[in-house]
């Protein structure tokens, strides 16, 4: 696996609480959650740059709502 570099991350209390909650519900370390967030953000960014759109879809009604990204 690729070598890793270490960084310090400063989070607000709400951010830390959100990170801890995600870590608990997803059964992942906080570091793993951050690494996943980075992957998802970059994926979203790349596909938006290609002209694609990001939607949420209601499972029952199949109604799509676009996630607006500025």
């Amino acid at each position, binding site marked *: *696996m690729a*070598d890793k570099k270490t960084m310090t991350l400063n989070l607000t209390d709400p951010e830390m609480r959100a990170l801890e909650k995600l870590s608990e519900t*997803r059964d992942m370390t906080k570091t793993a959650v951050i*690494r996943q967030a980075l*992957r998802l953000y*970059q994926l979203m960014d790349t596909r938006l740059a290609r002209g694609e759109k990001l939607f949420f879809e209601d499972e029952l009604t199949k109604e799509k709502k676009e996630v607006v990204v500025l």
Partner: protein
Amino acid sequence: MSSRSDVFLQVKATGEYVAASLIDGINEEQVGAAETGWREVFDAELARLKSANVPPERWPQHAHWDWRKKHAVTDGILAYQMLGIECEGQMQGLVLLKTAGVYCRFPDQKGRGLVYVWFLSTAPWNSPTVVTNPRFGQVGTVLLAAAIQVSFDLGFNGRIGLHSLPQSEVWYEKNGMVNLGKDAECHNLRYFEMTPQQAERYLR
């Protein structure tokens, strides 16, 4: 940036094991060389099957995969990871993983992240569905182990998932994956998962 680690493949003719390299982070040149070499063998085999009137459902089901295209679309995106095994100067197998945004369906693990094995292929000269005397064995086994290691590295505790081509279903079951049935949203392919416990056993 790619990394290499030592793995072993089995020479089918003798049963002996030979050293090979697992490459994490395949580059354009490597995938191009693999695609060119594999394409020649696949095309020859498909031509032979056509002329022998073998029904299409018995053709190798992954022969049409274009690894060069898959690499072009996913290269540089962290959520995708392509690994390969190089031995005797040739790529003997490739796997493309999705490492973000895919979650377990197995009831015990529902909602937890996993590494999705999107495409996995051994070189055609290693595949018993393509050649009578395959060259190397253990290619799929090593690539599946690599996917599990990526899962551990990302904090998913070894969880992996995949949709299997019909010709590979028995192999995935033999390798300890749970068959969760056909997925109507994915060409009715059977969906398999491996739990953390199964992943630990697989790597032993």
